[in-house]
Every structure is written in C-alpha cells, then in structure tokens.
C-alpha cells in the first residue's frame, strides 16, 4: 500500500490518539476519521497501527473503553482518556513540542 508517506511518525500515534480522545470519547473508526479531518488528510492512521496502539494505551491505563450505542443505533467500543492519561498527554505534548523546536532549529542552522 502506497500510503506509507501519510502515516504518522512512529511513536507519535499515541499522542495523536490521546489528543483526539481529549476532546470527546470516540470509537476506533471515529479516531481515524478525526485525525484525517484535523490534519486535512495529511495524516492517515492505518488500522494495523491504530488498534494495537489503543490496546497499549489501555494497558498503560491512559485510556479506558466501554461499549456504547452510536447515533445510528450501532454497538461500538468507545475509548476515553483517563485522568492519568490526561496528565500523560500534557507531558507528551510538551516533549513533542521540545522535539519539534529542536528539529526546526537543526533544520534552520544547517
């Protein structure tokens, strides 16, 4: 599949998921759509990375999940950020920003 260029950087997917969930609880498919929309289609999350990432975050207790009924009356598994996850999101965001600044700096000087 040729979309590899649109895939987020390894390691940032957790950040994207948590950021998305910080707005509202959402199911897996919704998360992918939301990320796509918010980045104007620049970033596309592959299902093969999404679900293992969700499982990982759940094991870390940064998110938790429950089965709910969607607007269209379908059962879906909704993920939600836990308080622990919210704190983690703050820390992750800051470290991401530091990374961006550092990379930007590096790109500018060379």
């Amino acid at each position, binding site marked *: 599949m040729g979309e590899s260029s649109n895939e987020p950087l390894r390691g940032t997917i957790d950040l994207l998921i948590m950021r998305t969930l910080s707005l509202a609880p959402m*199911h897996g*498919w919704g998360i992918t759509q939301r990320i796509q929309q918010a980045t104007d289609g620049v970033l596309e999350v*592959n*299902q093969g990375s999404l*679900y*293992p990432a969700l*499982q*990982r975050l759940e*094991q870390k207790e940064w998110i938790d999940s429950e089965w709910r009924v969607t607007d269209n009356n379908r059962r879906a*598994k909704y993920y939600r950020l836990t308080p622990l996850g919210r704190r983690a999101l703050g820390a992750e965001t800051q470290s991401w920003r530091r990374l961006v600044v550092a990379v930007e700096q590096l790109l500018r000087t060379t």
Partner: protein
Amino acid sequence: MRGTKRIAMWLRALVSRPTMESELDEEMRFHLEMEAAKHTRRGVSNDEARRRASLAFGSVEQHKEAMREGRGVRGIERAAFDLRFGFRQLRKTPGFTLAAVLTLALGIGGNVAVFSVVNGVLLRPLAFPDPDRLVTIAHRTRGGDLPPTLPNASAADVVYQASHSFDAMALYSSWQGSLAGGDTAPDWVDVTSVTRTLFDVLRVRPALGRPFTAEEDRPRGPRAVILSHALWRQRFGSDPSVIGRTISVDGTMHEIVGVMPAGFAFPTPAIALWVPMRVDRTDLGGFNTPGIGRLRAGVSPEEATRELTQLLPGVTKLTDFLTEKTLRDAGLTTDVHPYLDDVVGRVRPVLWTLWAMVGLVLLIACVNVASLLLVRAETRRREMALRVALGAERGHLLAQSLAESTMLLAMGAGLGVLFAWGAVSVLPRLAPDLLPRLTDVRIDAVVLAATTLVAAGVAVAFGAVPVARNRAVAPASMLRDGDRAATVDRHTGRLRQGLVVAQVAMATVLLVGSGLVLRSFQKLRSVELGFRPDGVVTFRIALPPARYGTPESVAQFHYAMLDRIRAVPGVEVAGATGQLPLSPAFAEFDPLRMEGVTPPPNALPPLAEMRVATPGYFEAMGIPIVAGRALERADTDRQTGAVLVTQSIVRKVMQGRPALGARVAHGVPKVANDRPWSDVVGVVGDVRGVSLDKEPVGAVYYAMINRPGVDMNWLARSMVYTVRTKLPPAQLIASARRQLVQLDPTLPLAETRTMASVVDAARSGMRFSMIGFAVAAVIGLFMGAIGLYGVLSYVTAQRTREIGVRMALGATPASVRVSILRRGVVVSAVGLGAGLTAAVSLRMLAKPLLYGITPTDPLTLAAVSLVLLCAGALAAWLPARRAARLDPVRALRWD
C-alpha cells in the same frame, strides 16, 4: 500497583478469552462497516465499497493476531490449545489411552504407596528433638547367643556411669500392669518403668506436672507415676487437677506427678503409664533391660561403642562368675547404634526391597507406555509429514507431543495417587502389628512432590519419543510411500524388541523375588511349631499384688479358676502358662546352671527361657512329654521345685547326662545358692518360643511354687490360660468371664485370642512381604506380557503385506504361525536369561528376607522360567493365530 494490575489483566485475558475474541471481532467488523458506509455515501456501489474498505483495512486476521499478541498471554494460550488438541487425540483412541493411563496408574500408584510407607517408617525422623543423637545401648557376643540387651539394669547403671560419650543414658522395661482408680473399672495397661534420666535422653518434659525426682527413682522411695496423654483424656477426662491424686498400679498406690504430651510414644504408642525403675544397685537382675542414650554432640556411635566396651570389664566387680577373661572369650562387646535402627530394623530390608520391586514395576510400565507411544508414532507418521509439509514448526510438534504425554501422565499419576491412597488406608488393617510407626505413614507433601518429580521426568522422556522417531522423516518420501512400505525399518524394530527384552528381564527379577518369598512362606508354614494350635482358646488373668500378696494365694486362685474352666461342658483340657509361645516381647532369658556341672571356665553360661506352667498346659497345647511325667498339682507344695526341661536343654546343657533327677537353677547369682535348685521331673518337646524363624532356645518350665521368697512367684502372677475345646471361642470366653466374675469380680479377662491367631500373627511379617512382592510380580508379569503382545501384534500388522506375499508364494498357515511364535519365545527367552542373571547377581539383597531356602533356590528359578516362557508363548499366540488366518488376496490389497 502496576504489577498487580498487569496480572489482573493477564488473568482476564486468560479467563474471558471467548468474550475478548468476540469483542475483537465486533470492533473490527464495526470499523469495516463504517469505512464501507463512507464509500457508499460517496456513491460507490455496496460491493465496491466493501472491497475498498477491506483493501484499506488490510488483513483482519493479521490485525487480530497482533492484538492477541498484545495481550501477552500467547504462550499460555498456545499451551492450552496444545492440551486441548492432545486431549482430542487421546479421546480418539480410547483403547490406547485407557491402557496407557492404567499402566501408569499401577506403576505410579505402587510407588506412591510404598514410598509413603518408606518415608513414614524409614526416612521421617523420630518425633524427639535431635533424634539423630538417640542411640540404643546393647551388647553382643561373638556367637550372638545373648539377647541384645544390657547385662542387667544395675550393672549398666554402675559400669557405664564413667562414660563421657553421652549427654544422658537411661534404661527402660515394659510390661502389662493393672490400673485402678479414676472414673472407670480396673484395667490392664502397658506400663514402662524408666530411669528418671529418660526425660533428659529424649528431651521431652511432661506437658503437665514434672518428671520423676531422684528420690522417687530410688528403691523404697515414694511411688510416682506419669500418665500418657491418651490415658489422661480417656480415664480422667483431661482434668488438670489430676496431678497429686493417687492411682493403683499393680496394686500399689502411686502419686500422679505428670502427664506426657499428646503423641509421646516411648517405647511404643501403646504405653499408658511410666513409673520410675528404682534400680537396686545391690541386686543383679535378668538379661532383659534395654538401654537408650543421647550422644554428646559430635560423638559417633562407633566412638561410644569403643568407650563403653573399655568400661565393660567393670561389670566383673559385681559378680563372681564373670571374669575379664570370660568376657574376652565370649567376645562380649558393647554395641551402640542409632535408636531408629531398633524401631525399624526388622522391616528395613523388606521395605527397601519392596520399593525396589515397585520401582521395577514402574520401569516396566514406562517401557510399556513408551512402546505404545512408539507404535502410535509409527501410525501417525503420515500425519506428521503432512503437517511438516504444511509448515508446522518442529518445536511446536514437540510441544504438542509433550502436551499429549503430559496429559497421559497427569491422568495416570492422579489415578495412581488414588490407588495409593486406598492402599495406604487399608495398610493398618493388613499389617497392624507389623510396621512400626504406622501412624507416620501418610501421603504427604514430600510423597506427592516425589511423585510429581518422577511423573514429570517420565513425561519428558515419553514426549520426546515420537518426535525423535519422526525427526528423520522426509515429508515428501513419507507422503508418497505412506504406510505401504513393505517392511519396518531395521532401527525401529530393534528398538522395540530391546524394550520388550528389558521388560521381560525386569518381570523375571520380580517373579524370582516373589517366588523366593513365597517359598519362604511355605517353609515357614511347615515349620515344626512344637504344639498344636487348632482348637486352643487363650486368655490372660493377672493378679494384682495388693490383693494376692502371697505365692500361696496366687497358686490357689489359678487352681480354682482352672477347676472352674475344666468344669465347663465342652472343655477337653485346660492349663496355664506365664507366656504363650511366639510372643517375643516378654520372653525372659537367663543363664542356666546344672548341679554338679561346672561350666567350662571363662565361658558364659548357656541361656534358657524361664517359663511357668500348670498341670494341663502341655496336654492343652499338644506339647509332647518325651520322658518322665508332666507337672502335677502336688509339685506346688514340694520342698524343692519341680521343673520340666525341653529336649534342647538336655542336648545343650546336660550334654547327654540323664535328665530325670538332675537339678537345675536359673540366674546369675552373686551368692551361689540364692536361687534354689529344682528337680527335673520330665522332658518335653521344644516349641518355637520367640518367633517362627528362630530355632527354639531351650526352656525350663517351673511349677507354681507355694513358698515365699521365690522369685518365680511374679511369673505366676499373670497367667495365660490355654483351653482345648470344641466350643466356639466366643462361647468359651463368655463362660470363662462368668466363672471369673464369681471368683473375683474386680479382675479383667484380657488378651482373648485363639492360638491359631497367635500363630497367624507370627506369620504376618512374612505374609506382608509375600503379598507385597506377589502383587508387584503379578503386575510386572502382566505388563510384560501385554508389552510383548502389543509389539508382536503391531509387527504382525506391519508385516501383513509381507506375510500375504509369502502365503501367496506357498507358505502354509502353520509355518507362518510358527515363525511368529518363535519370535515371541526367542524374545522372552533372551529377556528371561538377562533377568535370571540379574536376579542371581542381586541374591545378597534377598537374603535377609528369606527363610529356609537359598536365594538361588533351583525350584523357584525353574518355576519362574516356565511361567515366563508360557506367558511369552501366550502373548505371541494371538498375533500368530491372526497371521495364520490371513487371506493372501486381501493382505496384498491391505494399505
């Protein structure tokens, strides 16, 4: 916190696996449908939308697998899968599974049962602090004709006082005594007199009250008694205020000074009372006082033996017939050995040998299951090849094979432990008096751990067999040829035959062992007892000294009671004696002197049993009077005692001198005439006095003596009545009880038994080993035969095509049958040869268990060979017959 959370999640992943799987399914499906719906909204056809969604999504299974891995329990899930797979495999072949499980259950069960006995009786330490330092102090002579006990209480106490090897030393001596006081009727209980140092030796204090004081352990000191916990509970209702109260022991009032803790058992669990021994250092007693000591830390029994042997000559200062030269010539030495040896010494060789035998049975069982698995592996070669061709990892195949054998083992071990549990719980009924420490025998953690360890080892060995067998399989050639290969490859055939030979050899060893014990038992049964036990009923009446203080009253009572018994209709003849034959516990040996005969200087005097008998005893027991006359009632009043001697006394002590009219005396007198001479009035036949397998030691039978100052008096105080009668035993006992109540209502009638049961009990040791060995041997033989049968059947089935060709080419059914039979007999013969060689080289092990035969008893060996060859032929017969009936046309088409 995180750790426990993780474990909780793991557990959830394991326990609610089906829920998680279906949730995973639903989540994936939801995602796909939403994706497809998105495409549909954009105007794409439904099918196309679904196609695009799937394309975008990728392989659902792959994602799921990634998620499953993410749960972190993949290994366990796979193991669970393997186990389920193994279970299905086993269920598909119930015959194989049943055979394997039963074989293993028998093998493992036998081992668990015998090991729990070995563990409880031989290995578990005694229930005293530092039990390794507890030793028995005994004595030995070169010829071994002295009972292995101390020369006498006072001598030991005086002579060994100077020893430095011990923290403490004690003497003890047991008997049955009468007990009165407390809440119930008078009763007979087991009493042990001990020196007060016993509590220091064993390092056990009374749970209530105190040990004996030095004062109480002196002759003529205050009378004290310590109760067993069981007696305290039963008779005194566990009342703590019992301390200080008095009870009557053997008619004398004793103050209760202590109660021992529950579980205290010395020297046996039956002992109810302990009293001080009150050793009189001026009086030499009999050769019958066992000693026990606690070694100083770091002192070995050998060092203690050396030191006490050096002190031993001190005993000569106490007596004038023993000189240092006598001791040297007799080779008298002290023998200090672990106390545990005494407790279990008798059964040790039996138990170890029995364990070795059930070990062999387990080996045979293992070989059997291994060859079953091997056969199974052969038939599954095509399946294995297919799976390898389809990409199964060899490691995983090994794991599955292991899972299968583990399950077999688990089922076999589980069933085996059940068998063993059953066996261990009937053991007390099977061998009540036989095994010491029987209460210590149970299936405990140690036993189960050992079982698990053995089973695990066996499982690994088994599991590897089929995989190792199929390792070399090249999938392509296997799939092409399948099972059509006309002959079995040479390697497999040889391996299987080797296994069968080993089985037959082990079965041979088992059969030889049990055959030898069986023959010993037979010999023991035909031992000349010296009396006729059938139709003799016995019971004991003992007279407390407080009520029967004089020898006269004792003799009067017994004569009166005998008169009453003889008057009971149906009683032929009745008599009484101090001690029945074949009761080793209370046998009383002493040196015997003969008037006018000076024993060779510096030799220990010959020993003889001291027994007391009434008129009628010899007739009732069927002991022949060889010369002279039987005892008569008038003998009781004679000025000199009248005695009967046995034939072996005439032979050994009198050395051919005329017995009738000779005068003999028992004892080791410091003053030569402190025990009076008695006239020999008759000679009687020898009886097996102590045990069936020991030659009779000569005995002297004394008449009850109606004269004070004669120590034969106490022997008569407690008498066993022997009644020859046609009445049923219960009816006679009931009549005897009625008579006793009329004579003296305070006396109990004890130890009611038939003489036949006494003889039977004496045989119980040999019977126990015989049953144990026979069971092991029969199982071993059976399994060996099944193994042979299985292998021959399989080989025959494999050779169906070959046999078909031969028959098509003109071989007759008879020749086919002979060829297969020959194979079975040859394999058995080779195994038999190996087994006999092994049995002969192990013969020294069997020696202590045998009686009256040599370990290479030709009759046994011949019988075993015959049985084995017959079993081999029988095992070969069925497959041979099947092969001979083969229809060549069908055989050639057989696949």
